């Protein structure tokens, strides 16, 4: 869990152990407010995310460490793997780590309130874990749309008014 050597983490991905750490589920929540504000919440299992980032970038981060470099790596990773059309000014807001290994990353953004159709791309962790599933909720008012992203299903077009 505290491994600095990328190769070691690579191996961890292929071994199965008695105490299993891989959870393979992330939850993304996109809250579209009537006033044009957007709240984005990404919920991960901390060590899954660390492993994915290390595999992809070669940089070992610890999400419980408070430093700006970790913030910027997280921001870049998420922006690389998550995209929603019509969003502007996506800003990294912060993160929260819990000792039960749940980990949250928050962004805020703006959107054009006249839009109802969105293209969503979510490839978070998908390259690292074969069984990864990214559940994504889009909420506006009382409407909720739920999408499920997998290796062979990384793009959706969703109409929030339908």
């Amino acid at each position, binding site marked *: 869990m505290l491994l600095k050597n990328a190769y070691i983490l*690579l191996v961890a991905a292929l071994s199965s152990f008695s105490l299993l750490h891989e959870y393979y589920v992330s939850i993304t929540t996109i809250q579209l407010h009537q006033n044009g504000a957007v709240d984005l919440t990404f919920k991960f299992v901390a060590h899954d995310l660390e492993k994915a980032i290390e595999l992809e970038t070669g940089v070992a981060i610890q999400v419980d460490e408070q430093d700006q470099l970790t913030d910027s790596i997280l921001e870049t990773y998420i922006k690389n793997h998550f995209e929603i059309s019509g969003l502007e000014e996506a800003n990294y807001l912060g993160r929260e780590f819990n000792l039960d290994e749940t980990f949250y990353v928050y962004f805020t953004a703006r959107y054009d309130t006249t839009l109802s159709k969105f293209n969503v791309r979510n490839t978070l962790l998908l390259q690292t874990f074969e069984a990864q599933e990214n559940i994504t909720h889009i909420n506006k008012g009382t409407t909720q749309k739920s999408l499920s992203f997998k290796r062979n299903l990384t793009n959706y077009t969703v109409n929030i008014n339908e």
Partner: protein
Amino acid sequence: MNKLIVILLSILVFKVSGQENVNKFRQLKDKLATPNVYRTASGAPGHQYYQQQANYEIDVVLDDNRQKITGKEVVTYINNSPDPLEYLWLQLDQNVRAKGSDTKKVKTGQISKNKDLNTLYYTLKTFGEGYYEFDGGFKLTKVKTITPNAFDSFTVNKTMMRLNLNKPLAPGDSVKFRIEWYYNINDRMEIGGRSGLEYFREEDNYLYTIAQFYPRMCVYNDVEGWQNKQFLGRGEFALPFGNFKVNITAPSDHIVAATGDLKNQKEVLTKTQISRLEKAKKTYDNPVLIVTQKEAEEIEKTKATTTKTWTFHAANVRDFAFASSRKFIWDAMAVKQDGGDDVMAMSYYPKEGNPLWEEHSTRAVAQTLRTYSKYTIPYPYPKAISVNAKQIGMEYPMICFNYGRCENDGTYSDRVKYGMITVVIHEVGHNYFPMIINSDERQWTWMDEGLNTYLQYLTEQEYQEDYPSRRGPAHKIVDYMKGDKKMISPIMTNSESIWQFGNNAYGKPATALNILRETVMGKELFDYAFKKYAQRWAFKHPTPADFFRTMEDASGVDLDWYWRGWFYTNDHVDIAIKKVIEKDKKDYKKALKELNDVQKKALKLDEDFFIYQIDFENIGGLVMPLIVEFTYEDGTKKTHYIPAEIWKLTNDEVSKVFVEKKKVKSIALDPYLETADTDISNNYYPKKVVPTKIEAYKLKEAQKKSVLERVGK
């Protein structure tokens, strides 16, 4: 004849009605094996229950120069079954690492879009069939019978070996044979594995955690025949019980930790070590160091050229494993347990684990023994060991290998600390499931991982109040349960075919049991039945049906609906308050007038009353108890607990009338998140907006600043 008529009649009935019984409360008869003389309908072992026995005498040499294991074993196999056995099957687990093993062949993968070195290395090693080859696997040098004429030939089928008996082994007879072998020890840090070596480059030293190191007998029983399903890497083991006498020859400066009692301590330990060990046997509050860090650091500076042989005996175990290194610090303490003998809790770790390990490992072992023995049976073995092994967690009888290392400067974060305590509790807990309550892991991962993870949760909470447990509480399984159904296997799925292994075989069954205990049955009924299961099946081979049946039979609670829903389907819990209709005394003015005095008195109609009809909708599919909390206008609260059987006639919608003395302001369904309801936005009347995570975060951040900072001044 009668049977035929019944069958014809039932066909007729189905034809007429045109539908199958899909009621969620229909009994589980179609899913569970028919009870018989080996396994009863009550879930207990039957009057003709039997199991096989395999006894081993093993001599094993650990070659620290070549990182190689060389072994000889004499196996005595006793056929307690009523069946003549025409052949015997053994497991050659090391063969998963043999050149060209199926484990790698059946691994799937895609070429990564990333072209960096790490990904390339990973891709080639993991999926590159024929590219990265380690010369692993058992090299058998002798397979010979000792019992005259028992067999002349054997057949190796990948990870399994068949001894081709000349004549069947009769019930009650035994056969004795000798096997000799060697294998190269895998570098765990390079190619993975539940056991193997870790190399410390700076000082050129090894830490060995050695398991599946000898050909092991397969289980033969009434359920599977021979359990000889190939070992592909994930579905773990099925092993018969037996007695072990093992001689381990290792470099003379190594400390060896192993399953069983050390029989020759005078030959392998110093006088000081022996007297410290004696002191530890009488010390119940704190671990006593038998090899100190200072001593270990001195020993690891040089390398002995001589060897020592350590002798261990273990009775009634299903397996044997050991660890060996000149780097080991060793501590131990005694643990008292109710209704059982004192037990030794021990830890072996290199300096890289300290100070975390000297503070927590042995204490976590002791807590595990105390909690598990309270809920199951007294720990029956003389000791329980936790060995520090980077990166893994893996269990064997009396010994397990657990991760958790400190930074070079000896510091560690809370995250590392809790990760380490969690793994120690989990792996030591495996002594009970599956080492003692010996289920078939090759077939059912959840039977040991799920039950173990459930008790791990109770142990963590006893180790420390509000321990940050990862699995157990109902709300922590919600994300998994509400996922895409196409990606969720029922718990009752063979180990090799499970999607989302950790959630499916660890998290969901553990949570299901915790919910069953806290929300469905109540602690008293659950604990009695769970303990009964452990008592009945300790040192035996239980199946899922034996567990399901015992939990019902011992508690008097019909749980068929619960097992069916949680273990045989991938339904989830989402129950909603669909509609609420309110009436009060005024609405019944006319009717009230018509009641006579006796009726009025019986109904206490001089007081006010308010009537509420709540329509509940079952959206997720799983039927669950309804936990309904009323908040009255005066601010007080009352909880109604309605058993799941409310759904017994209609599974998807029910209405219920509540008569209250006070006017209700709001109604909440499952307000304390005890049922794993995946959508709580439909659990409130009137509808309530639950603040989102990000809103709570923004508020928390804002509170850190003064108003002037917030407005930018």
